[in-house]
């Protein structure tokens, strides 16, 4: 736990309040020195009242919690961050995701998390970084991703809470004629010196007339009542009783239901179709052309699904290769100098080192992977003459607002978003293609809300999957140590594909292509990472820890291979090569936790280790496996991570284990392979992931030594697969260089 917090730099934050109908609203805005002050601009236009994090009226208190909860508990964490300073039970307030607005721009992900690492200042040309920041700011990027919510918001939300608290105290001091120093706050009320309680709601109208108290200090961690301790997620009761409503559960009066059948080949669209049979089916309202295909509107989702199956359609043929084999050839052929996109790590003299000793080579591959969140993609849209309402679960509200305004031809401020909890995302809801289709569908029946729900088959066929990715690795060892390490990492550009769909393509090299490889804290004497940009075969998307989830498998597996060739200890050699104290801390912690004594833990068993630094968080994982008659069984997994101060320890542990299960399960048995331009795997029978009977025991530790506070939604995924591969090598002598591993070994 960190010590007393520094006083927040006043130049960086601007705090404001504004009168709203019957109450007061408090906002905190991050202001950069190069950007016009957005609050002053809003005040001039009289619009500041719509940009708060905290709204207090005479009847209720509302927190605006702008980051989307895709299952990782960030709504609850945001509420607890505000509540810690405001002295109120977060379960007693309304939580509202709010509307897209510049006040909620994700400054961290714009300038830090995508695509530049904070520990890599020296690697990235400042000109490129500056350009990227400008792009993000002027585009008003409000989105959730990159494990960035906590790092972006933890100060802002606590400051908003403290500002509101002190302003409410000032209102009480003025009204009751007492000194503000004598006032306290507790559980939603200001406490007067005679112990009388005055509810915040009673003070709302007074507070609205005051200049907000901006000279506030954040409470040190030692004074926290809730943060850092075990507390209950605000949504846990609803999610344990079936009373949580998700995007897919929206019900509106007079609502119709739709589903989509799009060309299984991406981007090609319709050649011809006949909807004669479908239109005759019971409950069918209409057949509508949408982006990439057709939709059926009916009076029941199942009837719509039956009718789309009855559509007679000839599809146009996409221009990309038809099969996985041909797609892999595109990557194989891309390993040429013209395709070099970046060389952000080039230490020592790799070429010379490779000539000095016997070269060890390896080739690694990972397949396309679907996100397959358990809630199929869905959106409900109501189009009226001069406005659009959208109900959905999304990470990109700004993009949806803009798309709705464009498709329906209304002003952006005539679009109202109702952002709802998501039944998972794993990066899929960083795209809004399903919402665009739902808007196109609802536009054909103005005045009637339409809920569009994809089938699981549509969801997996029209995913923006994790890209194919391969690596050619070369290295040398000498005197029992790694001497050189050189990897060429080859993939289509995820940044170019995704940014073009929801944003604008950033300048400079695609660092996602080399994330998890170029940015690791190893100090190998001769160390080089080269990114090769392959042509895009199909549109691709961000998949939990994009870039790192693939590159870490390549990078750590090859580190392990070289260590093995050198005859060194996998943990001790990593510690020898890393001097960053935070990274060393997690390696040492994981070694202590599992009583590390090398990879051999007995006959028929094996122990593996991997380390990854992703999303600003170093994570070390150790995996133990046993060979059983039914196949390989994963017994135990130890995880040590350092994200700095932990605000929500129960949830943090859940993210560590969940992220590792995600990494392990997909490495074991998941892939999308392509035939006829489309994925062969279209449902969970062919895309299993980890099941409960395969789930190992988990042992986790959050070290809390890092100065930088970061999110935990993704970092434990990257090292899981290489740690498992290393354990299998230890048990069997077989080095797995390609996912999924069940192509080569059986799992229990």
């Amino acid at each position, binding site marked *: 736990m960190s010590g007393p917090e520094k006083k927040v730099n006043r130049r960086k934050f601007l705090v404001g309040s504004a009168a709203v109908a019957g109450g007061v609203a408090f906002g905190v805005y991050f202001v950069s020195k190069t950007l016009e002050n957005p609050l002053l601009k809003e005040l001039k236009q009289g619009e500041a009242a719509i940009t708060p994090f905290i709204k207090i009226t005479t009847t209720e208190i509302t927190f605006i919690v702008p980051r989307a909860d895709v299952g990782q508990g960030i709504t609850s964490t945001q509420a607890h961050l505000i509540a810690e300073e405001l002295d109120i039970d977060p379960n007693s307030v309304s939580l509202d995701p709010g509307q897209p607005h510049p006040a909620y721009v994700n400054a961290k992900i714009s300038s830090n998390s995508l695509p530049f690492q904070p520990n890599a200042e020296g690697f990235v040309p400042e000109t490129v970084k500056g350009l990227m920041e400008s792009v993000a700011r002027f585009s008003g990027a409000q989105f959730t991703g990159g494990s960035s919510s906590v790092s972006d918001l933890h100060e802002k939300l606590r400051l908003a809470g403290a500002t509101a608290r002190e302003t409410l105290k000032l209102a009480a001091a003025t009204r009751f004629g007492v000194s503000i120093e004598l006032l306290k706050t507790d559980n939603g009320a200001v406490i007067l010196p005679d112990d009388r309680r005055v509810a915040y709601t009673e003070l709302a109208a007074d507070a609205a007339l005051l200049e907000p108290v901006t000279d506030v200090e954040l409470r040190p961690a030692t004074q926290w009542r809730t943060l850092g301790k075990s507390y209950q997620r605000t949504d846990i009761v609803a999610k*344990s009783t079936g009373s949580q409503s998700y995007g897919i559960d929206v019900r509106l009066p007079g609502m119709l239901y739709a589903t989509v059948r799009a060309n299984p080949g991406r981007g090609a669209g319709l050649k011809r179709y006949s909807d004669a049979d479908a239109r005759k089916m019971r409950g069918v309202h209409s057949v509508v052309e949408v982006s990439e295909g057709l939709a059926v509107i009916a009076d029941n989702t199942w009837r719509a699904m039956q009718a789309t199956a009855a559509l007679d359609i000839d599809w146009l043929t996409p221009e990309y290769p038809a099969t996985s084999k041909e797609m892999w050839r595109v990557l194989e052929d891309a390993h040429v100098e013209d395709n070099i996109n970046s060389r952000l790590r080039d230490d020592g003299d790799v070429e010379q080192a490779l000539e000095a000793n016997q070269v060890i080579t390896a080739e690694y591959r990972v397949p396309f992977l679907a996100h397959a969140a358990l809630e199929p993609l869905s959106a409900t849209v109501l189009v009226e003459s001069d406005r659009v309402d959208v109900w959905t679960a999304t990470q990109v509200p700004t993009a949806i607002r803009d798309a709705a305004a464009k498709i329906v031809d209304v002003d952006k401020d005539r679009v109202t978003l109702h952002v709802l909890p998501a039944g998972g995302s794993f990066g899929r809801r960083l795209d809004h293609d399903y919402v665009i289709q739902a808007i196109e569908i609802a536009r054909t029946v103005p005045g009637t809300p339409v809920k569009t729900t994809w089938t699981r088959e549509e969801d997996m066929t029209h995913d923006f999957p994790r890209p194919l990715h391969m690596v050619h690795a070369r290295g040398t060892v000498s005197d029992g140590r790694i001497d050189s390490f050189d990897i060429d990492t080859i993939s289509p550009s995820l940044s170019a594909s995704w940014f073009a769909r929801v944003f604008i393509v950033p300048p400079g090299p695609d660092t996602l292509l080399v994330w998890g490889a170029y940015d690791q804290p190893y100090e190998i004497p001769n160390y080089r990472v080269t990114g090769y940009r392959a042509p895009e075969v199909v549109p691709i998307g961000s998949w939990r820890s994009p870039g790192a989830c693939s590159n870490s498998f390549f990078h750590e597996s090859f580190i392990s291979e070289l260590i093995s060739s050198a005859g060194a200890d996998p943990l001790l050699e990593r510690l020898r090569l890393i001097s960053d104290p935070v990274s060393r801390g997690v390696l040492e912690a994981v070694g202590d936790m599992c009583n590390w004594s090398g990879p051999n833990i007995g006959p028929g068993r094996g122990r593996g280790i991997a380390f990854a630094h992703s999303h600003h968080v170093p994570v070390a994982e150790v995996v133990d496996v046993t060979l059983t008659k039914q196949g390989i069984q994963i017994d135990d997994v130890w995880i040590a991570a350092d994200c700095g101060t932990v605000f929500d320890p129960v949830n943090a542990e*859940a993210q560590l284990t969940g992220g590792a299960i995600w990494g392990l399960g997909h490495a074991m048995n998941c892939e999308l392979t392509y035939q006829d331009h489309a994925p062969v795997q279209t449902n969970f029978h062919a895309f299993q992931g980890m099941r409960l009977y395969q789930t190992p025991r988990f042992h986790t530790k959050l070290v809390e030594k890092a100065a930088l506070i970061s999110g935990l939604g993704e970092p434990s995924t990257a090292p899981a697969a290489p740690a498992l591969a290393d354990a299998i090598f230890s048990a069997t002598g077989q080095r797995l260089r390609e996912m999924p591993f069940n192509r080569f070994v059986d799992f229990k």
Partner: protein
Amino acid sequence: MKLKVNGVTHELDVEDNMPLLWVLRDELGNTEPKFGCGIAQCGACTVHIGGAPVRSCQIRASSVRAAVTTISELGTPDQLHPLQAAWIEHQVAQCGYCQSGQIMQAADLLSRNPDPTDADIDLAMSANLCRCGTYPRIRAAIKTAAVSMQDAE
């Protein structure tokens, strides 16, 4: 067609082959059972029919002969079933989308086997998919609920 759901009998006019899931969700407005795969591979749509767990996406409503119950019949926020209380205590849910199905499946396990071993839990629960990876806490919550249900007897 008559269908009894959570104690209420409904008169329905739907196709013989409409799955129970879609009758519940779109005809009766009960969104507690979730649509996840449509082919009985995830368990998110699990309900009880005559007390036994059934994947509601794979059974025609017209073939249902016994009473259907969904998770709110098991317990509510004000009156929690021991499994729901254990799910809250262990903070099992992340996205939570699979958890109604998980709890309905676990309720069946504990009704047949009040003191399940790890192997019993593995066998009973492994057809219920959780993409968030909440399995370790599901295991722990089932054990906690088993103890509290036995203590209550």
